[in-house]
Every structure is written in structure tokens, then in C-alpha cells.
């Protein structure tokens, strides 16, 4: 059900709520462009103008200067209600209509567009399913009968109803607790893989920005754009002290969460099986820079480490001697989690296995650090 997606471009957009004053406005000279199908996150401290910027797109607020282009067309040249009906809008306070059932809430824009009742209902059910709410159970309830997390989902479903090429989402997961929020984030990212909408997403949480955004616009007080780019850029090269502080002193670690083991060049490691003769093995290990040997079984499943120094002079290798296994990683593990596990287990290398548990290689602190140098995928 991947629908259309639009490009959005801010061109020198300025908003001054009090046009009399000459001081800095709520938003100042904002310029950036979002390609079709991408999530662009606006992030910054409270009052920096995120919401104002967002609302200028669907013209709930009119800019004082500058233009906003949707698929190259200035939004001010479009008919107001028609423009808005073509843009999905999720607001922080969710803003469900309390007097309408969930089904009616989701079908608001289709109704405005004149769809017939049957089609509206079908669409509402489809969307409820999409956001993980069983239609039969939820369709006829009122918003007051839902939990905070459920309401957020309905808000997203409602914005998606007319399959708009652009979605505006203002802190859509702001009102729920961290555990529910994490789940909603993951669900939404999974959804977006199919939908491939263009999304402008506002948050004040830098972690959420990094997690959700293909592009991140960091704004600072006075609605100034402090930096614009992919999350990895922000973390790797904060453009200013403000951005550096905003992304946090642990930005190196945050960056690691953007890459996965599969993005790293795995190192080979000398392996052997229990019962293999020790002598040739020792030679191989000594030739290798890594001072350990990995014991594997017939299926190439790792069993444990043997220290180069502890290898018996001769005779078969014994699985009993192996050092307890360090944590197993897989290609989908984020580098941050990998690092955490390695630190936790106090090992110098993480063993990477595939879905069947077969050895793929190892990662070391060095290889994780090096991955940071190359731009993340």
C-alpha cells in the first residue's frame, strides 16, 4: 500500500508572531529540503520553533517571509482545505475528536473528501489493523475508552487515512511512557518501510531524533537551523558547540547505535575443533595477530576461547580448557549493543554468528572504532 510521497522544501522561511518587533522571530531564515519518502526530524529545545515550522507547512500558521514548496509548488498557492486534506497531521496532544468513535475519527478526512460510507469503513478498518488495533474491538469505542498509547496509534491512523504524500507529526509519541513509546517508535519505523511517506517529525528528544530520522534538523532558540543532515553526520561532526552539547557527551556511543555488525568488516580468527592436534594449531595462532584461538564444533558453532599462551605443547585440544564464551553477536546487533556486551563481559572481541549459530568472524574494539570513521550505512 505504498502511496505517493512528496518533496518538501523550506526556503528562507521566517515567522515573527509579533510583526511589529524587529528582534528575532520564532523561526528565522529556515532553509532545508527533504527528498520524497524520507523522515526528517526537527529537534531542539523547548520553544525553539519546531511546532511553528511544522504548522507553516499545512498553513495553520502563515510565514512572515520565505516560501515552503511541496513537490515544488508553493503551499500558499494551494487551496487551503484541499492542501490540508492532502497532508496527514498528527499533533502532540493527539487531538482525537472525543465525540466520534475511533472508526469515525480515523475516517475524518475520507469523509471530508466525500468517500461513501462503505469505503470509509473499509479504510478505517484497514488502518486500525495497520497500527495494531483490532478493528472489531476498537472501531466503535470512544477515545476516552482508550489508553494513551492506543490513542497515539489512532492519531497516526487518522493522519494516514487519505494516503497523503506528506505527514506532519508533532511529538506524536510525547504523551506516553518510555516503554510504550519505544514500542510505538519501532512499529512506526516498520510501517514506514512499506509506506515510504515523506514525514516531518518533531521531537525534543535527541535519541528519538536519531532513531527516527533519515535527516535531522537541529534547531536552536530563535528558530535558527543549527545543523541539518543525516543523524550520523550530526554525531560525527557537530557543527557547533550547541549541537555538540545537544547531542550529548556520549555522542560517540550514540553514533554506534546507527550502525550494525553487518556494516563492519569482520576479522577472521584462527579456529580449531576439540580433538585437533595442538601443534599445527599453535603455529597458526602465533602467525595471527589475535592472541586467542576459537574452538568450534563440527557445525562451526563457537564453543569457547583458548589462550595462545595456554595451548598444550602437543596432544589433542580439549574443550574443557576453553574460556567461557564471550557474548554472541549477530549481524543485526547494533554496534552500541555489541560494545556494551563486550564491556560487560570484559572481552576483547565479540564473536559474530549467523542465524543458524555458525561462526562469521569476530569484532574487536578496534574494528568498532574504525567503523565510525567510515560513514554509517
Amino acid at each position, binding site marked *: 500500500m505504498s502511496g505517493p510521497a512528496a518533496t518538501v522544501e523550506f526556503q528562507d522561511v521566517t515567522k515573527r508572531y509579533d510583526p511589529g518587533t524587529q528582534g528575532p522571530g520564532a523561526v528565522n531564515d529556515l532553509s532545508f529540503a527533504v527528498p520524497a519518502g524520507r523522515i526528517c526530524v526537527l529537534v531542539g529545545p523547548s520553544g525553539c520553533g519546531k511546532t511553528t515550522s511544522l504548522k507553516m507547512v499545512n498553513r495553520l500558521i502563515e510565514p512572515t517571509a520565505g516560501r515552503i514548496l511541496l513537490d515544488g509548488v508553493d503551499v500558499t498557492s494551494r487551496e487551503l482545505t484541499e492542501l490540508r*486534506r492532502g497532508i496527514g497531521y498528527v499533533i502532540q496532544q493527539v487531538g482525537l475528536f472525543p465525540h466520534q468513535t475511533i472508526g469515525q475519527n480515523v475516517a475524518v478526512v475520507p469523509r471530508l473528501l466525500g468517500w461513501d460510507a462503505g469505503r470509509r469503513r473499509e479504510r478505517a478498518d484497514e488502518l486500525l489493523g495497520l497500527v495494531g488495533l483490532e478493528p472489531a*474491538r476498537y472501531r466503535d469505542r470512544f477515545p476516552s475508552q482508550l489508553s494513551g498509547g492506543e490513542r497515539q496509534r489512532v492519531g497516526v491512523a487518522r493522519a494516514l487515512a487519505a494516503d497523503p504524500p506528506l505527514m506532519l507529526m508533532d511529538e506524536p509519541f510525547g504523551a506516553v511512557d518510555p516503554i510504550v513509546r519505544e514500542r510505538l517508535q519501532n512499529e512506526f519505523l516498520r510501517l514506514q518501510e512499506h509506506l515510504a511517506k515523506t514525514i516531518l517529525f518533531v521531537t525534543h528528544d535527541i535519541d528519538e531524533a536519531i532513531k527516527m530520522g533519515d535527516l535531522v534538523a537541529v534547531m536552536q532558540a530563535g528558530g535558527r537551523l543549527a545543523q541539518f543532515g543525516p543523524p550520523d553526520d550530526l554525531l560525527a561532526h557537530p557543527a557547533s558547540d550547541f549541537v555538540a552539547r545537544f547531542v550529548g557527551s556520549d555522542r560517540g556511543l550514540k553514533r554506534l547505535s546507527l550502525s550494525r555488525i553487518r556494516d563492519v568488516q569482520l576479522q577472521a580468527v584462527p579456529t580449531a575443533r576439540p580433538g585437533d592436534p595442538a601443534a599445527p594449531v599453535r603455529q597458526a595462532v602465533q602467525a595471527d595477530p589475535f592472541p586467542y584461538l576459537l574452538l568450534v564444533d563440527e557445525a562451526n558453532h563457537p564453543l569457547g576461547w583458548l589462550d595462545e599462551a595456554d595451548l598444550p605443547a602437543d596432544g589433542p585440544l580439549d574443550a574443557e580448557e576453553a574460556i567461557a564464551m564471550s557474548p554472541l553477536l549477530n549481524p543485526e546487533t547494533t554496534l552500541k549493543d555489541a560494545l556494551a556486551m563486550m564491556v560487560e563481559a570484559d572481552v576483547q572481541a565479540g564473536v559474530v554468528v549467523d542465524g543458524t549459530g555458525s561462526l562469521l568472524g569476530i569484532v574487536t574494539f578496534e574494528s568498532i572504532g574504525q567503523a565510525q570513521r567510515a560513514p554509517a550505512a
Partner: protein
Amino acid sequence: MDWGWILDHLDDLAFRTAQHLYLTAIALAIGLAISFALALLAVRRRSLYPPIAGLASIVFTIPSLALFAAFVSITGISVWTAEIPLILYTFVMYVRNIVAGFDSVPPEVREAADGMGYGRLARLWRIELPLAVPLIIAGIRVAAVSTIGLVTITGILGDRFGGLGFFIFEGIARGYFATEMLLGAVPSIVLALLVDRALVLLQRRLTPWAHPARPGSAPEPAAA
């Protein structure tokens, strides 16, 4: 209490009760229509609210006795002699509540409506009005109870008016004939309480969302 007298006058009671309801209903309906227009005006142009509300409350300070008397010389023995003052008195209760009703619409709901492309009128009728219903009905309740009381005073205009107030006036004329005064007062009280109750039920019907069938919220479903 003279129960026999009451039994002899049940038909009058029915007639006066119907008249009472009729006089009340006209005043409430016309008052609501006019107040609604005034309230909308006030909601759209905030600067108009103070003068509208102020005027309505000044009208409210005019004693009913004087207002009925004043309209006798203008509208004679027509039903409007009773209705116009009754209607004027409803304004203060209606306008305040209707405006409060529209004000009670949460700003985020209004914003969501705008953001989804509702036109002004559509937003008003489909979103704001339904959400204002509880407070509007609260206004109707106050106006209804108060009007039912005032209708008794229209008895001062003669036997053609007064509704149940007729009994009160006639009871006074008979030398404070308690049975008849109570035959006017008690049904009038009951009528007010019943109408009030009926409006509460009407509100429940009109605003099912405010009374969740299942209180509390359902547990979060497992992630899909």
C-alpha cells in the same frame, strides 16, 4: 388540604399544565435560537461578547413584574406579552453557557480539525457544536427551570396566561386557599424537576462519548 377540590379540578390541572409547558417551550425555543445566533457572534468576534453579555444581564435585572406590565401596553392581550419577557430573560443564561460551551472545545481538537482540512462551517457544526452540547444543555436546564418559575408570574396578565400560576393567583384571590395555591406550586416544582431530568437524559443520549460504556481503559494490546 382539600383533596376533593383537587379531584374536581384535575381537568383544569391538565389544561394548565399543558399551557405551562406550551408557554415555557415557546420561550425556551425562541430564546435558544436567538441566543445561539448571539453566542456565535460573540465567539467569532470576541469584542462583541462583553456588550452582548452585559446587555443580557441588564435585562435580567429588570423585574419581571415591570416587564410584563410594559409589554401589556405594547402587545396587548397577545401571547407575546408573556413570551417576549420570558424570552428576554433566557438570554443571560443561554448566551453565557453557549459561549462557555464553545470555549470548552480543547484547542488541540480545534487544531486537529483545521489541520485535517475542515472548513470553518464544517468545523463549527461537526466538531465544535457537538462538543459544546454538554454546556449548552446545562444552559437549557437553568433556563428551563427558571422559565417554568417565571411562567407562573404571567398569571398577572390574566386568566389566559399563567399556566399553573393561575392556581396560585386564584388561590390568593380566594383568601390564600392553600389547596389551590399548592395545586399551582407543587406541579410547577415537579414540572421543573422533570424537565430538568429529561434534559439530563437528553444530554446522555446526545453525548454518549462522555459516558464510556466501559470505564477505564483497555490494556495495551501486544505489539503486532
